[in-house]
């Protein structure tokens, strides 16, 4: 049975529809990513899950309990990390941890053991007495995560925990999330970074308050309709123009080279002659896997 069940959630702010009939389920011991750009509705949804906002319509249940009516019972199971840093800047790392641990009823030896365990993977021990305001961005994220985990929650909800963080630190963060999954925790993460989807169990695309697609990472990208090739050559305006001139083929500049797009079911072989006639070098054209971004864009344009 799903640990987190979101049922037809809708929310509007005046004229703006932030969420439209959104449904989603997260299983126990599953890492689920909510992927979408700014303004897509990620934060709105997460706030509704944590009862920081009330939806216009729809229901949310966690561990079988209704968030709207039984949230006090859900609180001990829930670990939340908001998008902006929400701990106390004038309190030290240790003081922030002790405070939240106390609110969740964790004190004494049990607290110290849990704290030390969190210190090992966060590397915050040397900074225990430092004021939170004096921590670097990456350390703040780790502290926020530690406070969300101090009480051994069964579900962790993270709102863009890795925004602005470099790829290596992001990787490390995700490794922590995978460890949690191994311990049976459900994790719901929102992110604008497509490349993070690769590491989760399932993901969905959210855009304009709607769910565009959902599934395992590989299958999501594979749902791309058509095929993409990379042409490793100087992307001059002339070549791009010539390529676009070939019917059923579209080309655009990409980095130091070009992307060629073919329709579903089409094969590159059909174009060998046409390509040769404009002077394209077939040997420098190789197929590439469509990226999640490619698929996202395709879905967005379809809406």
């Amino acid at each position, binding site marked *: 049975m799903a640990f987190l069940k979101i049922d037809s959630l809708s929310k509007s702010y005046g004229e703006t529809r932030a969420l439209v009939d959104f449904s989603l389920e997260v299983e126990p011991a599953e890492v689920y990513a909510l992927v979408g750009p700014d303004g897509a509705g990620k934060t709105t949804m997460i706030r509704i899950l944590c009862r*920081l906002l009330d939806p216009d319509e729809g229901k949310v249940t966690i561990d079988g309990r209704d968030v709207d009516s039984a949230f006090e019972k859900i609180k001990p199971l829930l670990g939340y990390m*908001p998008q902006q840093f*929400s701990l*106390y800047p*004038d309190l030290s790392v240790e003081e922030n941890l002790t405070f939240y641990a106390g609110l969740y009823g964790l004190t004494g030896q049990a607290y110290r053991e849990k704290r030390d365990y969190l210190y090992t993977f966060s590397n915050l021990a040397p900074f225990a007495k430092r004021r939170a305001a004096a921590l670097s961005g990456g350390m703040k994220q780790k502290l926020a995560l530690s406070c969300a985990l101090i009480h051994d929650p069964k579900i962790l909800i993270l709102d863009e925990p890795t925004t602005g963080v470099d790829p290596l630190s992001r990787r490390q963060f995700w490794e922590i999330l995978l460890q949690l999954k191994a311990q049976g925790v459900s994790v719901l993460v929102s992110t604008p970074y497509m490349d993070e989807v690769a590491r989760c169990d399932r993901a969905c695309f959210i855009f304009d308050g709607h769910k565009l697609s959902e599934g395992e990472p590989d299958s999501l990208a594979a749902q791309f309709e058509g095929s993409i090739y990379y042409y490793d050559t100087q992307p001059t305006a002339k070549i791009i123009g010539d390529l676009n001139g070939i019917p059923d083929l579209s080309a655009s500049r990409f980095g130091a080279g070009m992307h060629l797009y073919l329709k579903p079911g089409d094969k590159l072989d059909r174009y060998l002659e046409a390509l040769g006639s404009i002077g394209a070098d077939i040997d420098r054209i190789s197929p590439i896997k469509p990226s999640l971004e490619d698929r996202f864009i395709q879905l967005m344009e379809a809406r």
Partner: protein
Amino acid sequence: MHKIRYIALKELFHILRDFRSLLIVLAMPVMMTFLYGYAINMDIENIVISVVDLDKTAASRELTDRFFKSNYFSMAEEAPDFDDPEQLLRSDNATAILLIRPGFSEALQRGEKFQLGMTVDGSDASLASAVQAYSDAILLQFLMDRLPVGFEPPGLTVSRQVLYNPDLQSSHFFVPGLVAIILLMVSALLTSITIAREKETGTMEQLLTAPVKPYQILLGKLLPYIFIAFIDGVLVLIFAQTVFDVPFQGSYLLLLLFGFIYVATALSIGILISSLVRTQQVAMMIALVSTLLPSVMLSGFIFAIKNMPFLLQAVSRIVPATYFLKIIRGVMLKATGVETLIVPAASLVGLMVILLLLATRSFKTRIG
């Protein structure tokens, strides 16, 4: 409830670590007492008058002397212009002109009636009545001193005994009231920003998902401030006593106990404001306006409540200073006992409970 303890401890950290604010919080009430204590001095002294002595005798000179030897009058720097004596009053160089015409000394010796002339600037009514009262008193004393020894003028006299403030020093009246008002304002200010700040900085978002209830947050935040505000109160009282010589007739313990209750009530006003409002700036403004003005105007600080229209009298009942004014004036000036003071004290407790209940009701557990 140990969760309240955690909230209170955290709040204490916030208070102690904001050193500059803490300094202001402790120094400000003392400074205000100082400033307002000296500024609000209702005793009228050193009224500027000009005495025009046309008699120029020993007697007239003695009368003139008496006017200026007292603290009540001081001499104008200019003499009035004979063509336009009122110019002196119009130009605010004197409040009154006393004219002693020739023949004063002779009339005195012969026991005849004589009229002195006094022109008074009536634009400040209380000043003018003070001039009249003081000059009558000086004249009467002058005459009495010339009477034969043993002579008693016939008529009624009133044997007056002014208790509690025999010199009618206004500071005894005002300073305790000032203490009450300053404490109210500072306390409300202190707590008004605490919840609003968590909303503004975003820390509330995290707190709301933790298993802690609104009443626990409110009480936890209230506790540390009670001690700070209490220290403020003690400082202000000591200051008032030493600088303004306000006597202390009653029990220190009683004042401390009831002062505690008063301060807690005042802090609860701030807590309520903080629950309702989203930004710290607005919270501070509301705290200032809702405590300073009503307490100065409606608590009995200057204006007697019984003289007010009914509606305002009703409003004065929800101003905590109204009750504490009775308590502090009672204890300091009249040595009033518990039996009388228990009534206003109970009203304060009732007010505090209502304020905290309202604060709990209006505490939002949602963002936005």
